[in-house]
């Protein structure tokens, strides 16, 4: 075939397109290609600053504690990331986690069910709750914000009614339910089994997102639902599977939470909704869907943990952490808005 040989730049607009980018534009393009750079820099910077203010911050003891504190929100952020990648949001994270936890704990206590079955029921219940959310979002086309705002109340109420508002103490539960809180030493670090499980969760879900067709479809659906549908993706199925997977992750997190808290209390993790969303957003995942990485959410959760520990060790009022995290959220969303304007 005949191709007209177009020179390196033949029109004024092409000359313009080939112009040298300013440093700011290069940063914009870099962040666009790798959105987890900014949370990574914040994490490193906060580590350095907090270590200088109080050297105890960088001690294995203190860092081990940060990891244990971050585990629960970090795990919830995995499910939240999946949902936010599809341009959704999940306000029922905490409610689903508590419902799963109370049912698993009560069944193990009251009926004397073996730990394995109680844990499996907890995860299954989380997945079922996710199916409800996903079904309402995908089939009835309701906005995720409204759906999960509703199920937040529904699942919270069911959890409280079922548990009659009472906690279950660790001594009343099979050992397996508390297993996630067991610590072991790696060098000078004290790691819990729960922390290891969260690390494994990130590795597995991160692998699936980056390397499978399902992972691609999660991004594509969040990016452009109509384009995905026309490309032959079953958008409904992807959405339902994302919410169900997230729900199962919350069920698993319930188990980690029992180990971390030592009890199953219906009043636990009241801030889980906002904190998990905070971790995801600080991690550079776009609330508009289709952009972001799971690694970013891990960094986001760690940043919040670093601020909590670092500011406490600096002897500062905890409200400054709340203030700082709030500012980070606004900065993160601003950066996202800015890098989404990248054009050729």
């Amino acid at each position, binding site marked *: 075939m005949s191709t007209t040989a177009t020179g390196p730049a033949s029109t004024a607009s092409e000359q313009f397109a080939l112009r040298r980018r300013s440093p700011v534009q290069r940063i914009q393009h870099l962040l*666009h290609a790798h959105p987890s750079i900014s949370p990574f820099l914040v994490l490193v910077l906060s580590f350095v600053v907090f270590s200088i203010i109080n050297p105890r911050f960088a001690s294995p003891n203190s860092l081990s504690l940060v990891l244990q504190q971050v585990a629960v929100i970090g795990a919830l952020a995995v499910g939240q990331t999946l949902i936010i990648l599809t341009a959704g949001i999940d306000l029922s994270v905490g409610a689903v986690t508590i419902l799963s936890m109370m049912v698993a704990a009560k069944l193990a206590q009251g009926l004397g069910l073996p730990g394995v079955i109680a844990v499996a029921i907890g995860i299954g219940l989380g997945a079922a709750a996710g199916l409800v959310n996903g079904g309402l979002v995908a089939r009835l086309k309701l906005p995720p914000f409204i759906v999960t705002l509703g199920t937040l109340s529904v699942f919270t109420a069911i959890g409280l009614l079922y548990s009659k508002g009472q906690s279950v103490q660790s001594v009343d539960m099979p050992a397996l339910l508390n297993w996630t809180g067991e610590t072991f030493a790696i060098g000078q670090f004290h790691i819990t089994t729960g922390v290891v499980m969260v690390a494994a969760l990130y590795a597995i879900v991160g692998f699936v997102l980056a*390397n*499978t*067709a*399902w992972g*691609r479809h999660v*991004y*594509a659906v969040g990016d452009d639902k109509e384009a995905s549908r*026309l*490309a032959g993706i079953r958008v409904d199925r992807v959405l339902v599977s994302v919410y169900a997977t997230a729900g199962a992750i919350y069920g698993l997190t319930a188990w980690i939470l029992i180990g971390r808290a030592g009890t199953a209390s219906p009043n636990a993790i009241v801030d889980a909704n906002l904190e998990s969303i905070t971790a995801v957003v600080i991690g550079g995942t776009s609330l508009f869907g289709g952009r972001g990485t799971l690694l970013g959410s891990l960094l986001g959760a760690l940043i919040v943990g670093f601020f909590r520990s670092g500011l406490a060790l600096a002897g500062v009022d905890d409200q400054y952490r709340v203030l700082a995290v709030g500012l980070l959220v606004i900065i993160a969303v601003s950066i996202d808005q800015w890098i989404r304007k990248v054009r050729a």
Partner: protein
Amino acid sequence: MTTATPAVAPVLSARGLVKTFGRVVGLDGVDLDLYPGEVLAIIGDNGAGKSTLIKCLTGALIPDAGEISVDGRPVHFRRPQDAREVGIETVYQTLAVAAALDVASNLFLGRERRRAGILGSVFRMIDKKGMRREAAQALEELGIGTLQNVTQPVETLSGGQRQAVSVARAAAFGSKIIVLDEPTAALGVRESNQVLKMIEEVRSRGLPVILISHNMPHVFKVADRIHIQRLGRCAGVVTPASHTMSEAVAIMTGAVTLAEPNGNP
């Protein structure tokens, strides 16, 4: 001899398509034939039923009445996926690309290829390298050498390049028929010419193309036959040889009526 109907069996044919939207009549009994290796343009004024017609042919809409057959076999599309399965690939006006995904991912969107062996069957890993290689090859074959980097996100491409990605996606998967909805509407002169050249390239491979367009010079440049829609009906099928541009426009606007709308004026 002015007949615009070749004497071979059509690849795609539609008979008596009707589609209504409440009281609005989108299609009012439309016939259409697409023959092997031709570019069939569909022109018509706004609201003439061009888009409705191709949506029925590509499974995006389900006609209320009428028959569609591919290679002589009747088909009933209920989803775009159904049409794609029999080999009808569509490039939508909105381009239907996921802007944040890269070029290769978009080319393979919805039909990702898995890696060989256990990595693919058990771990469900997709073959990123292979897909990138094939994507680059598919673009190269269509003469889009300017788009070398298939790992760049589609949102960083120009309109013409995005169009090229969409056309390459449609042409790359052993398809039988390619439908292009207003492929040059949003493009500049140079980019339009690239797309027209791409259409000719696709035709030279023996793939028939249905081209919906407002742009008469483009239509007359590449089309073998021109199906003129007017008020939900086919007002006639002409060829660039049998009619001039202004005659086609006259038929389109109703200033002239063809005695025999199905190709024998």
